[in-house]
């Protein structure tokens, strides 16, 4: 991938808006299949999310600190992938994934629950003591989420808009390392968001590629650039399923190397709804 084309994407941005306006609307029927496929993707990830949450919360309840710590990041990945859908349930999103900054009293706030409450216990206080109630609550919330998503009709605009929304997540909270400030497992979440965004893009790509092949090429290049930088920080560089090193080990230069492609993806993917007439 040439760095040059990366930048060209930025300067061409203004034109993208114009091109979009002369494009014929995609027929509504054409959206049915990718939306259905996306629902399958979400349900599959939710399924795995439930199983992983079971293991994770059981480790907390059993007082196995090391195991609970090691399962924290691999469990969250599934949630991060499907965030555009999970976020539709604001109450659950808050109790599962809120951060201490969302509460005036921070970690002391009685309403602060979920992953990041456990993260604080496991990685900052380094204990499972007293966290069983949070583990139970998390498991209940995750089960509730699965039940609710199963009954949900997926709104096409939300699905398509999710590709950009996930990149906005990355730009806003992952690059800075504030999401997982105690465990420093931000790169797992980062990968989860990127996976989720890329999945949506792949599903709808066939509907836009004829009209705007340059757009597709740019997006693919920028996804590749992000993946390339992420790969530097895999525990096992050759194994895409292996985990990541601590975000503290990511150099300032690489943190910056993420920003360019992530912003370009956020800009480009923000036009995907328009391209599909949504």
């Amino acid at each position, binding site marked *: 991938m040439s760095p040059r084309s990366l*930048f060209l994407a930025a300067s061409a941005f203004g034109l993208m808006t114009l091109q979009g306006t002369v494009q014929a609307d995609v027929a509504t029927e054409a959206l049915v299949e990718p939306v259905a496929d996306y629902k399958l993707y979400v349900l599959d990830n939710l399924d795995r999310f439930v199983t992983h949450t079971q293991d994770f919360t059981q480790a907390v309840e059993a007082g196995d600190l090391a195991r609970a710590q090691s399962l924290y990041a691999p469990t969250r990945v599934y949630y991060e992938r499907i965030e555009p859908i999970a976020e539709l349930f604001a109450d659950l999103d808050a109790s599962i994934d809120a951060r201490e900054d969302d509460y005036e009293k921070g970690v002391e706030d009685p309403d602060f629950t979920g992953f990041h409450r456990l993260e604080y216990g496991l990685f900052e206080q380094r204990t499972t003591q007293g966290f069983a109630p949070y583990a139970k609550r998390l498991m209940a919330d995750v089960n509730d989420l699965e039940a609710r998503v199963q009954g949900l009709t997926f709104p096409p605009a939300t699905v398509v808009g999710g590709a950009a929304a996930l990149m906005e997540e990355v730009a806003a909270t992952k690059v800075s390392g504030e999401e997982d400030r105690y465990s420093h497992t931000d790169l797992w979440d980062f990968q989860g968001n990127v996976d989720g965004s890329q999945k949506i893009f792949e599903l709808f790509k066939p509907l836009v590629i004829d009209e705007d092949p340059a757009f597709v090429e740019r997006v693919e290049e*920028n996804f590749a650039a992000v993946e390339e930088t992420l790969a530097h920080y895999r525990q096992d560089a050759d194994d895409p399923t292996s985990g990541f090193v601590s975000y503290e080990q990511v150099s300032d230069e690489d943190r910056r190397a993420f920003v360019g492609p992530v912003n370009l993806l956020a800009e480009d993917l923000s036009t995907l709804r328009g391209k599909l007439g949504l």
Partner: protein
Amino acid sequence: MSDRSDNMPRCPFSLDRRRFLQGLGATGTGIAMAGLSTSAWARSCPADDMPDTDPEVTSAPTSTATTDAYPFHGTHQQGIVTPRPANGMIVACDVLARDRDGLEQLLRTLTERIAFLTRGGTYPQGDPRYPPADSGILGPTIAPDGLTVTVSLGASLFDARFGLADVKPRHLQRMTGFPNDALDPSRCHGDMSLQICAHTHDTTVHALRDILKHTPGGLMVRWKQEGTVPVMSPSDTGPTPSARNYLGFRDGTANPDTADTALMDALVWTGHDSEEPAWTRGGSYQVVRLIRNFVERWDRAPLAEQEAIFGRCKDSGAPLAGGTEYDIPDYSDDPDGQVTPLDAHIRLANPRTPGFEKHRILRRPFNYSNAVEANGQLDMGLLFIVYQADLEAGFITVQKRLNGEPLEEYIKPVGGGYFFTLPGVIDENDFLGRGLLEAAASHA
């Protein structure tokens, strides 16, 4: 996120497709011209000219200066000898481009955006299912409003990434701390600085958002500081008095005369020194310093001490020896500092001794007021910006003379950086940094 696509309220509009397509053709191949294309959407929303009514509490503030425009093309960039408007900000960025081509693309995009923003015009209107072409905070048609955007490069841009080391301006360097500094790394340095100035604050914010929107893979903001200058009413009897800083003193009095082009060539514009790379001609060294003022403490200092610290009268701005603000301080009959202490700010900054002329600098500061410190004290101070032809002879020499001055008890420099302001963009075919890139190419 919620799904509102089906019941989204929309302004009625009608599209004249043929005119729209013509407009598209006229925009050529890039965003370059986007701002110039005329609106092709015939909106059925009523035009926004309102009948005359008595002003209401939320009626927009009005100004007759919104059409002020400074020509973008010229040997020098605007924003240096351009009269300082009421609002200014410095935005220090890191450049994300990965190679010299990417850097050139960034500089071309900046050139195009600044040319449009400083002239004003209408943004293209698009399909409402897409994000709009502009933030819209100034409406679909923007007025220039005295806007200037001045682009300068930091020493870090001349590292290995772009192969520019051989053509670096001779004095450009990373800012180092002075004895009274307490530099906060998150508010220092940068590959590039954008100085954005305009009559109104929202115009500067709009320009920044436009620029960032067009350079998503090219720039990352590192830090930003906004500032203001109080607006003065012109005096009937003489020159307009200088605006005051947050210590209550008139600031800018003894600046070199920007109307004197020979003086500007000597003091402000780089390139007359044969040891500078030729491409730097018409540029300038920009120094930015964020200097916190301890205003609570200052307001409890005796007036006489305040005046002795600066060497000027607080009300009038006149030298301590008397006269008016614009009387030139003369220390020749005050060798022991009986009238103007030897360590007064203005006396250290410019002893007015023979040969010191070459150390004069052009100050163009703004006052800043941020949040509060943990101790409940106000975080405010001076967004100190100076320009000079030679960084060593200018700021660095003067700051070294000021080290240890009594004013230090009331101020604390916390951030900033050294930059080189690129020469101006001559015409439509030119772009910011062209000379630099050509010099680098011929060096390789």
